[in-house]
């Protein structure tokens, strides 16, 4: 029993980092452009299919395929930003509706191109690691470490570089930041594109672990938004923590409670957080 719980804890933490990477995009986009980009889920889906396509059909080695997938999602993100999101800055409801429309369009395109049949990528890194009696596929460990590294690198970049500080400054006071020489339009586009690229990275790594369906993004974006709100929107490390908390709750929760309602636990938790601690669990942290 303890092994089962420990296993679910670990698994939950790994899935949680996947939630976290998308949640990070949600948080950054909201902080800088004032909209919640629900379409990040489909960018994750796009990244997953791109990685699958580059690795299995084109035949690139997996790491290169991941890079190519990130490139593709970044480009798609730039296109979406210039064509759509540029016009909905700081208009939460319009931004939400446009991203909902974008989800419908991109998901339908994915269904037309890739069909609803789940796609399975070749095993990238077969083999397992034994971790104190727990069996863990090597690839899951790699994904976990990689995502953690990217999230912490983002945090470091935001706090240590000029651009990162400019982003914080902009989030706190757009006018003052603009007066201090922050190129606000470029900053906003940059953050939207970077968030899409993060989601694409999450998707590309997801492709190595699970089978792909065109609807995979919908589930993940809901979880990511939950994670971002849970932690307090605007907090980078909070996005990671929120994701992990959510992943672990689901993993451990499904041992004791019926599996069918697994997606509901997170929702109940989210509603309670919003009601009683609306600023989020880690309010005030960056």
């Amino acid at each position, binding site marked *: 029993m303890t092994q089962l719980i420990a296993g679910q804890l670990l698994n939950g933490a790994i899935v949680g980092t996947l939630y976290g990477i998308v949640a990070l995009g949600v948080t950054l986009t909201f902080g800088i452009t004032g909209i919640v980009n629900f379409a990040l889920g489909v960018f994750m889906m796009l990244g997953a299919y791109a990685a699958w396509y580059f690795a299995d059909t084109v035949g690139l080695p997996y790491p290169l395929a991941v890079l190519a997938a990130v490139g593709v999602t970044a480009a798609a993100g730039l296109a979406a930003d210039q064509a759509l999101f540029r016009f909905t800055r700081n208009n939460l409801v*319009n931004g939400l*509706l*446009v991203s*909902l429309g974008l989800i419908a369009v991109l998901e339908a395109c994915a269904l037309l191109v890739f069909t609803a049949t789940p796609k399975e990528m070749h095993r990238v890194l077969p083999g397992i690691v034994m971790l104190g009696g727990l069996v863990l596929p090597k690839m899951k460990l790699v994904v976990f470490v990689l995502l953690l590294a990217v999230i912490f690198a983002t945090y470091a970049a935001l706090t240590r570089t000029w651009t990162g500080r400019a982003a914080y400054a902009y989030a706190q006071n757009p006018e003052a930041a603009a007066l201090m020489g922050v190129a606000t339009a470029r900053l906003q586009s940059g953050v939207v594109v970077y968030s899409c690229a993060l989601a694409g990275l999450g998707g590309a790594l997801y492709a190595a672990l699970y089978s792909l369906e065109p609807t995979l993004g919908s589930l993940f974006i809901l979880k990511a938004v939950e994670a971002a709100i849970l932690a307090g929107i605007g907090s980078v490390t909070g996005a990671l923590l929120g994701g992990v908390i959510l992943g672990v709750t689901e993993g451990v929760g499904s041992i004791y409670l019926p599996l069918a309602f697994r997606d509901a636990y997170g929702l109940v938790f989210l509603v309670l957080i*919003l009601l009683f601690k*609306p600023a989020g669990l880690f309010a005030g942290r960056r």
Partner: protein
Amino acid sequence: MKRVAGTALVAAALLALPLATQSDFVLTILVFAFLQGMLAVSFNLVFGYAGQLSMFHAAAFGIAAYATHLFGKHLGVGYWGGVLLAAALVAAISVVVGAICFRFRLREFYFAVVTLAFSEMARLTVLNWNSMTNGSLGINLQDKATLWLPGIGVSAIDSTLAWYYVALGALAITLVVCWRLVHSWMGRAFVAIRLNDELGDTLGINVFRYKLVAFTAGSIMAAFAGSLYAYFLGSLEPGLLSIDTSLGIIAMVLLGGRRAVAAPVLGALVLTALPHLIHFSAEIRSLVYGAILIFSILVMPQGIYGAAAQLIRRHA
């Protein structure tokens, strides 16, 4: 006066339409459009007038569809007994959900997320309560919707023509109720809340109460739409409560227009008729919905009604 004449003309044309065509194809599309229009008009009361982006509308619609059947079957109250009990159930749930959201002052995005969460919980419940709802397979409705007519008594609604008049009547009632609400003191309170609820509060408007009234009234009308829709369709499925249904409702309202009570009906007509007139697969339909949503937000934020009104004003 012009407006009254116009309304009377449209009403007369719609009443007389079956004289011109008895085509099942045309009437079926119109019945769906009227019922979807009911849903869109009632959603617009909450969204367009009171300014609350509720994602609970699809849930109210779906819960009522299931509840009508289940009450009718297990309590033996007949179709209309089921409809009324379903509406009462939806009203009760909406008051609870709305009271939670508004008491804690959830706004805009947060309100949308929490209502979406409640909506998803309802969908998961329907999906997993196999003994009652038959899970993801749904239920084929064997029983028929009925109607009491003076002189004829209670009879089943089974012809498309009968459904046409029932749906038209239901839409008309919804429009009248919404029109009366919007053009009353309460409607002005809704608009005040949309524009600035803090200011409304200082003017003595009970923001909590009127938000709750708008939300609950909208949900009850969605419930009636759901009860009718399911029985016209002849089946129940968890998809009725899905995010896609919410998305469809929002698309209808944005396309039709937000600033007039009847405008969303235009959106419902276009979006219901379009996939039938051109044979779209499910994927293409979803693509078209998404594209229309984006298009109406970015290019035509006033919707068809607003754009047409502007055009007329410019040329008048």
